[in-house]
């Protein structure tokens, strides 16, 4: 969890204009929706993905993210609306004319072809000469570091290698738009992290626009320039990973990205600029940040690493004496569940587990504190 935060911060600070010069395509979903009879799987959605952007769609299964990707690829005909790639509406175009690259969840490699034949397939379909195919396949194999595997069959490769073949096959014809549908879903954790690095590097070098579907928020935060959280066939919030993590708009986004303690808000006592003072049903008075539309904001979102413990809580805008209910060591961090005074329940606190720091015993009292800027008001569902 800490790793994610670190990478989020680093990349979140990268402004859009610093993106490398791109040959990627610009994608616009214009009032797109999809229904099957009475069942609406995608509500009217308008979304623009800039050229060269690494854009992630995240959400639980059934949230509409795969439908959106399917519409772009041409596998799912939308019920209403237009999809434009560099200004051209592609809704009426069959998939094989769209010139889009795609990596599938199960890779969808052709089991009866060798690795080289798999990668050469899109070139063959485009009528490239045999020599050109051989040359470009060789280059693509080198790019994914599988030079020696060209004559193998997909079934003879490991999951990670198959994944790289799928990537090479989707990129070998230089599409300006690359779609990835949970490409790392089938890999184990270590390999997944390794492949994330590789995909990121790949996209930087390749310069295409990438639209990446995943239900793994850490993966999305690591990879994407911007991400859209989807829920129930609708876009819930769009922003950079850091924006979404630090300023979630809703309860759903707050708890979908990373870990959050949510405190209910009973009343807003005062407002001064972006800062508000609120009272909880349990009787605590808390100073917090309210980015917009104060009236809708009925809860506070607290990130576990933003709460200081013990001596570190001194001088914070909000300070309370809590009781430790649960104390756990996880690799690199000490994780506490601390009961707030009154009846507002528990908050999660996470501090680095430096050598020599004792784990607090459950039942002990501890001061916790956070500054106003660390607590964000969000909309309740």
């Amino acid at each position: 969890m800490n790793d994610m935060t670190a990478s989020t911060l680093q990349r979140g600070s990268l402004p859009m204009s610093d993106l490398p010069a791109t040959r990627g395509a610009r994608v616009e979903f214009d009032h797109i929706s999809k229904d099957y009879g009475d069942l609406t799987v995608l509500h009217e959605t308008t979304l623009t993905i800039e050229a060269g952007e690494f854009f992630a769609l995240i959400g639980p299964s059934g949230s509409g993210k795969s439908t959106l990707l399917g519409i772009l690829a041409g596998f799912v005909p939308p019920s209403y609306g237009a999809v434009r790639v560099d200004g051209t509406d592609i809704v009426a175009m069959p998939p094989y004319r769209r010139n889009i690259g795609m990596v599938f969840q199960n890779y969808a490699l052709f089991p009866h072809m060798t690795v080289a034949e798999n990668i050469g397939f899109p070139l063959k379909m485009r009528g490239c000469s045999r020599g050109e195919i051989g040359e470009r396949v060789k280059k693509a194999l080198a790019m994914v570091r599988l030079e020696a595997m060209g004559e193998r069959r997909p079934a003879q490769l490991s999951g990670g290698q198959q994944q790289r073949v799928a990537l090479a096959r989707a990129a070998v014809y230089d599409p300006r738009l690359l779609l990835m549908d949970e490409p790392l879903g089938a890999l184990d954790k270590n390999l997944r992290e390794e492949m994330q690095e590789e995909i990121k590097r790949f996209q930087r070098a390749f310069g295409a626009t990438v639209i990446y579907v995943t239900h793994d928020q850490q993966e999305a935060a690591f990879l994407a320039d911007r991400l859209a959280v989807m829920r129930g066939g609708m876009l819930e919030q769009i922003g950079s990973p850091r924006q979404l993590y630090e300023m979630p708009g809703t309860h759903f986004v707050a708890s979908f990205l990373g870990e959050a303690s949510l405190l209910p808000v009973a009343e807003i006592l005062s407002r001064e600029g972006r800062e508000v003072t609120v009272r909880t049903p349990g009787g605590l008075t808390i100073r917090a940040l309210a980015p917009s539309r104060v009236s809708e904001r009925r809860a506070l979102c607290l990130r576990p690493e933003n709460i200081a413990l013990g001596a570190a809580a001194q001088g914070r805008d909000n300070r309370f004496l809590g009781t430790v209910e649960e104390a756990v060591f996880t690799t690199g961090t000490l994780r506490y569940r601390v009961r707030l005074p009154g009846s507002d329940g528990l908050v999660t606190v996470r501090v680095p587990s430096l050598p020599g720091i004792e784990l607090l015993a459950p039942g002990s009292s501890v001061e916790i504190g956070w500054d106003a800027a660390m607590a964000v008001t969000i909309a309740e569902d």
Partner: protein
Amino acid sequence: MTGTAPRTAPRAAQRQRARAWSPSKGGLLLLAAPLALLALFFVAPLLWVLGQSFAAPAGPLDTYVRIAGDGALRYSLIYTFQTAAIVTVAALVLSYPVAFLISRAQGRWLMIGMVFVLVPFWTSAVIRSYAWLVLLQRRGVVNEMLLALGLIDRPLRLANTDLGTHVAMVQIMLPFMILPLLSAMRGIDLSVLRAAAILGANPWRQFVNVYLPLSMPGVGAGCVLVFISTLGFYITPALLGGSSPMIAVAIEQQVSRLLDWPLASALAAVLLVLTCALFMLYERLNRRLAGAGEAR
């Protein structure tokens, strides 16, 4: 638990050969009964037939010499293989789209499709051959209908022709083609077709470059099944073909009319050997085509 686990114990255990339970011991016992049955009712009669083929009064190889010298018998063999080839190709062409549609069907449509394949499959070939006779004979359903429609003036000769026999044989063989095709087609991951589409393959190339090769195991299995079954067709050509030159009909004539058991046995032996040879050829081809891809 802290500290290291004791290292000597597992080593000592390794030194002794493990007396582990193994499935092979019980398996052999289970195999004994079917093996005995096969030996008694399949291998023994087969050997007896082979023995008979060398038991002609005029010498052990007399029957084979007579087959080689008899134009009618030679033709009968050639005709049989030719018929098997025609029936196989016709059955494949008819079955492929049917199997494709059923493989894509869901729920009720899948059930309806399977019923249409399985009910004829479960119906005796004798009954179906008689049914074809009823349809194709001089005053049969087909002729009556064509006459009533005014398309023909006189009944067509449909029974006792190659055409009629072939049509009936193809119909009887269809399930043997459809079922292996279906099983191969249902195993094809459809996301592979989507991948082909997004990579630039139009529907025709999706079929030729991806779907057809992936369905080839079913094509091969179905063709072998139909071809070999057709080689031994007896009841349908005997009923519909009159004096059909199918080899099984010829063998029956040798036995029941000419009482020439050795010659009939030799014909059966020749058919068996040719069939085995063909099957081995198919297996070899199959293995070469599948190549290293079978590692999965």
